[in-house]
C-alpha cells in the first residue's frame, strides 16, 4: 500500500471533520477513498436505523449501492452477517461459497468476486458496516483489512464528531439527521435530473460540484434547491439533453 496516499487520505478525512461538515458528503468521500486506497472495486456503507433496519447511506458506485440494497431486501449476505455478529466477515471467492447463494449470484452479475465486510463499532454497540467489494478472487491483504477497519472507525467517529459523546442519545440524534439528509439529497437529485434531462448519478455529481463551488454543505444546497430558494443550472459547455416526450395538456 502506498504510504503517502495512506497518510494523505487520513489527513484529508480528519481535516474534513471541521465544525458543520456534511456527514453524507463525508461518508461518500470515505467510500471513494476506500476504493482508491485499498485497491478494491467498490465500497458501500450501511448504518443501523433504530427502527429496525439497516440503511445504505453511501456507496462508491451505483453497482455497490444496488448490491447493498439487495442484501437488505433478501436478508442475507456478508454485510448483514458482519453487522449481526460485530465481527469482520470475508469471502475470497463468492462463486465457491455456500453461505449466501442469492447474494453470490447478484454479486457475480455486478462483477464482484470477493467481499470483505468490516464492522463499525461504538463501545459495545455495532452501528453499521463498511463493505469492500473486489472483482477478482483471492485473499485480502492483511494490511487492506487493517486500514479498512481504520476507515470504518473514522466513519463511526464522524457520526459523533460535532457533539459531545457524553450523552448516549447523541448518536441516535445524529444518525436520524444523517438519514434524513440522505433523503433530501435523493429528492434534490430527482428534481435536478428531471429539470436538466440528465440521470440521477450525473445529478449527484453536479450537486456535489455546485456545493463545493458555493462553499456550501451538500445537504443545505440540496434542501435549498428542493425548496426552490436556490437555483442550479446546467454546467456551461454541456448541451442540455432534450427531455423525454412530455405529456401536453389539451
Amino acid at each position: 500500500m502506498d504510504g503517502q496516499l495512506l497518510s494523505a487520505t487520513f489527513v484529508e478525512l480528519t481535516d474534513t471533520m471541521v465544525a458543520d461538515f456534511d456527514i453524507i458528503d463525508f461518508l461518500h468521500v470515505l467510500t471513494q477513498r476506500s476504493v482508491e486506497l485499498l485497491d478494491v472495486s467498490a465500497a458501500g456503507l450501511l448504518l443501523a436505523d433504530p427502527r429496525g433496519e439497516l440503511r445504505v447511506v453511501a456507496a462508491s458506485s451505483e453497482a455497490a449501492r444496488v448490491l447493498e440494497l439487495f442484501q437488505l431486501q433478501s436478508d442475507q449476505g456478508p454485510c448483514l452477517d458482519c453487522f449481526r455478529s460485530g465481527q469482520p466477515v470475508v469471502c475470497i471467492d463468492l462463486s465457491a461459497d455456500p453461505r449466501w447463494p442469492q447474494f453470490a449470484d447478484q454479486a457475480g452479475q455486478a462483477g464482484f468476486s470477493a467481499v470483505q465486510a468490516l464492522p463499525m463499532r461504538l463501545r459495545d454497540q455495532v452501528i453499521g458496516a463498511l463493505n469492500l467489494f473486489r472483482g477478482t478472487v483471492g485473499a485480502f491483504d492483511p494490511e487492506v483489512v487493517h486500514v479498512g477497519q481504520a476507515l470504518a472507525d473514522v466513519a463511526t467517529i464522524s457520526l459523533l464528531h460535532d457533539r459531545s459523546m457524553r450523552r448516549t442519545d447523541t448518536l441516535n440524534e445524529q444518525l436520524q439527521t444523517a438519514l434524513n439528509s440522505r433523503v433530501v439529497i435523493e429528492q434534490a437529485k430527482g428534481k435536478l435530473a428531471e429539470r436538466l434531462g440528465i440521470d440521477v448519478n450525473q445529478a449527484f455529481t453536479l450537486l456535489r460540484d455546485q456545493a463545493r463551488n458555493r462553499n456550501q454543505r451538500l445537504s443545505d444546497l440540496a434542501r435549498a434547491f428542493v425548496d426552490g430558494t436556490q437555483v442550479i443550472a446546467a454546467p456551461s459547455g454541456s448541451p442540455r439533453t432534450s427531455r423525454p416526450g412530455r405529456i401536453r395538456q389539451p
Partner: protein
Amino acid sequence: MTYVERRGRVWGLIAEQAAARGGRVSAADVCAAVVPEVEVTGAWLSAGLDALAGHLLQVTDEVARQLADLQLTLGEGPLLDASGSSGPVLASELADGEWGTRWPAFGSAASQAGAAAVFAFPLVVGAIRAGVLGLYRNRPGPLSDFQLGDALVFADTATLLLLDAHDRPAGLGSYRAEIDQATGMLTEQLGVGITDAFVRLRAYAYVNDIQLADVARDIVGRRLRLVPDPDLPLGDKT
C-alpha cells in the same frame, strides 16, 4: 424486531385508538397510542411547516399543552430545535446542565410544569416537513433503543397520516432511494412543491393499487410521467 413487524404493530396500536374513539384513523390517534407504548407521561402533535407557525393538533394532557405553549412563548425548546435540525432532540434529563444551557428559560419552565424529560421528533421526509411529535416524562431517563425505534415509527406514521387522506397509509416500505428521487422528479413534472409531489406519488400508487417502490422505479426509469392536472387521468405509460 424487524422494521416491517414494528410498523405493523405500531399501525395496529394507532388503529385501536381510532376504533375506541369510533372514528377514522387520524394523526391525532398517534398521541394516545404512543404514550403507553414508549412509556412516556404525555404527548402532543403539531402540524405545519415549522414549530413556531405550527398548529397544535392534539395533546394528551394539560402538561403536554403547557409544554407546547411554553416553546411558542419562549421561542426556544426541543421542538424548535428538532424542526430546525430535521433530527430528533432527545433531552432525557432537563435538569442536566447541557440542556439548561441550551434552553435556559424553557428548561426551568418545563420542570415547573412537571416535565423531567422531553423528546421531540420532527415529522419529516427529506425536505418535506409535516409537523412535530413531542413526548414528555415526569421522571428523567432516556428512551431505550427499543422505545426509540417505536417512537420513530410512530412519528413516521403520523407524518404519513398528516400528508395523506387515506385510511391506511401505504407505508414507505423499506427505504428506497428511488421513492425520494421520483418525488424530486415529480416537482418538475407537475410544477408543484415537494410535499404535493410526495402526496401525488403516493396517491397514484394507492389509486392504481401498485407498490410505491414500483411506481417510483418507473418514474426514475422514465417509463412513467404524471400529468399536472389532477382532474385528468393520473398518469400515462410512455
